[in-house]
């Protein structure tokens, strides 16, 4: 904070002709872009998910060669993670960073390059993955030319973000910005580290790592994609939008410091829990397990700070679909960050690994936590970005209920199927023989659960379709001209923060 007696070096000497106010504006157009991309790609990614959910119990739905389960599954995961959740965090970051820094984004051109570059990457993923152009490494399936494009666009984004921090007018960085910094730095390190490969053709490369090395690098990346693409930016989103929507300050500043640093430090170690009981060295697997269990506390620090921010405001849930969405999202965060450490315990993992239990776990994260936080943000943002009320509040509430029932059906079905199959694989009779020696018996048993999952997933998608209709009708009645919101700050207060922060220090 600039101290009252701090001289403000950038303020020019009193000048009659000069305004004593500095006027600037926020770039909200880029937020609208990212928000629209979020809902469109969300629907696409979930639609592919529904097709996959049909293909499992009903293989005739595999439309070969391009639309088989093996080729579409990476398309589904990439679309939901990088297109749906990705555009969502960018919308959140572009909206909140400008306000928290009291500054327009560093460069409008860079913002556009980031937006269109990212959409081009998504389109190229949607084309190449069904063509069978894939590295096979989970959540890093895209081949090297697209990997390079991702790196370039990410660097543009980083320069734009840090440039905005540099030109901020608010000396203090709010906790949401800490999480954004961690996101931008770590995703860059992970993406580059895991994608190093030797190209042999435009659509083919081999990783420079082999065997155990490749497995450890992949899950260092894979787990921390969850950590720094699906957790830290969403915590930043939560820290900005939840207090706004609840009109309450964040519960604990001290807790936010503790859980931020412990989360950032501990998460990176947890990758090997994806490789328990495999050929990776025992010490690495155990280290991964221990740090995963430790992760429970920093994760719940975030959940507690979120839920307790609503203290004294719980009555607002009755009327606010935004807060309803946030509460479900944060609750799912708490559940899946308890479940994650539990699944990392070796004896639990022995049962759960390779089964649908993991599928339940990732969907409670992606649909429960990322999805609902995204929807909460969208329901809060749209009236502000388009300057009109939602077309239908009832439809928004209906979205909340279809989404909630959908995700619950989904995860309960997959828990049942995962635990059932895991137990069947290891079932012995009294004579010491496998009860189900034929693998197919354990598959046939869980097919009813696949249909329940399809129902849950379809409900969830229907909620998103409702959101799109509601959004479309809302935009139609919005003013045609939406100028960027302008802000006027007294010139002294508007001194670029880097000067005042330095003097204050």
């Amino acid at each position: 904070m600039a101290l009252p007696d701090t001289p403000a070096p950038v303020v020019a000497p009193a000048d009659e002709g000069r305004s004593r106010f500095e006027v600037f504006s926020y770039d909200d157009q880029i937020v609208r872009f990212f928000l629209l991309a979020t809902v469109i790609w969300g629907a696409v990614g979930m639609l592919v998910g529904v097709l996959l959910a049909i293909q499992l119990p009903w293989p005739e739905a595999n439309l070969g060669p391009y639309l088989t389960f093996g080729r579409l599954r990476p398309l589904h995961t990439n679309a939901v993670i990088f297109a749906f959740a990705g555009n969502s965090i960018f919308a959140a970051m572009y909206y909140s960073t400008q306000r928290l820094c009291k500054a327009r984004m560093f460069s409008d051109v860079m913002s556009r390059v980031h937006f269109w570059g990212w959409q081009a990457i998504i389109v190229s993923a949607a084309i190449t993955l069904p063509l069978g152009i894939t590295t096979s490494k989970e959540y890093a399936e895209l081949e090297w030319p697209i990997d390079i494009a991702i790196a370039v666009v990410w660097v543009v984004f980083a320069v734009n973000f840090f440039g905005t921090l540099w030109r901020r007018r608010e000396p203090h960085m709010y906790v949401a910005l800490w999480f954004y910094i961690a996101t931008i730095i770590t995703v860059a390190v992970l993406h580059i580290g895991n994608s190093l490969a030797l190209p042999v053709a435009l659509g083919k490369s081999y990783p420079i790592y082999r065997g155990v090395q490749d497995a450890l690098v992949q899950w260092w990346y894979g787990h921390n994609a969850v950590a720094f693409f699906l957790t830290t930016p969403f915590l930043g989103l939560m820290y900005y939008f939840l207090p706004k929507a609840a009109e309450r300050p964040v519960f604990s500043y001290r807790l936010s410091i503790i859980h931020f640093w412990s989360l950032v430090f501990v998460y990176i170690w947890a990758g090997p829990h994806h490789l328990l009981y495999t050929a990776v060295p025992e010490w690495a697997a155990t280290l991964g397990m221990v740090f995963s269990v430790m992760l429970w506390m920093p994760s719940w620090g975030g959940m507690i700070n979120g839920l307790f921010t609503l203290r004294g405001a719980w009555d607002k849930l009755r009327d606010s679909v935004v807060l309803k969405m946030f509460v479900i999202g944060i609750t799912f965060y708490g559940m899946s960050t308890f479940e994650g450490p539990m699944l990392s315990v070796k004896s639990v993992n022995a049962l759960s690994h390779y089964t649908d239990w993991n599928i339940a776990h990732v969907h409670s994260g992606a649909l429960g936590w990322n999805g609902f936080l995204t929807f909460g943000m969208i329901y809060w943002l749209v009236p502000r970005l388009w300057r009109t009320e939602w077309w239908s509040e009832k439809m928004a509430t209906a979205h909340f209920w279809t989404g909630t029932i959908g995700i619950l059906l989904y995860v309960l079905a997959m828990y049942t199927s995962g635990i059932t199959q895991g137990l069947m694989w290891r079932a012995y009779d009294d004579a010491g023989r496998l009860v189900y020696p034929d693998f197919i018996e354990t598959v046939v048993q869980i097919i009813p659960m696949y249909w329940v999952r399809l129902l849950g997933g379809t409900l969830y998608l229907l909620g998103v379709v409702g959101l799109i209709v509601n959004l479309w009708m809302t935009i139609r009645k919005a003013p045609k001209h939406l100028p960027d919101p302008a802000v006027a700050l007294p010139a002294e207060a508007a001194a670029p923060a880097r000067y005042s922060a330095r003097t204050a220090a």
Partner: protein
Amino acid sequence: MSSSVPTPKKTTSSHGRHRRIEGWPLVFTVLVTVSILVGTVVEFAPIFLARGATTPMATLTPFTPLELAGRDLYIREGCNNCHSQMVRPFQDEVQRYGPPGTAAETAYETPFLWGSKRTGPDLSRVGGKYPHLWHVRHMEEPVSTSPRSIMPPYPWLLTRRLDLDDLPRRVRAHQTLGIPYSDADVAGAVDAARTQAQAIAQEVASQGGPADLADREIVAMVAFLQRLGVDARANAANAPTTALVR
């Protein structure tokens, strides 16, 4: 829940210290970077500096060029999304599939294909388990060999021509990455692949299968699948017994 409006807590001195770096984006960013690099370095340094994890098994030989082509088809079709290639040291898994997977037998695999989901059975020990013709029939129509299977059919593997143009470059890339292929292996990759394809196709025909598969993708896929676990089996004679978890 308290109904009083919360008041901001008094800033203590420890807050003050953190407050200060909250005004320094550069310092903050450096601290974050250090935080994430500690775990990264501690976990990776032994794996990359010590040879233990990447020393190949005595009986391990690199994939033949045709098997390599088959492996790339396995990757193209995304088989790894439903099939693991890593047996865990549990009695039921060993009974079902074979001995547990080891680091030494995957030392030449890039990318690794251990998988994370077993929608279908593990494949790391499938080599030699079935005749070639079984694999041809199974890929063409899974339920013909495995009734009630939910695996999609891959009939195009029997009709699409196997593209070998890239093969020398692919073998060369493996050589560059340190996998022991000789220059002769690179130069003779296409011929070696054709010879092996011919042998597989003849065997399929002799077992009563289609006669014209030598230049189709399916022979590469069969070659790859039939290789899985073979080197480990050759090694098994002098391997120590692993304690199994029941």
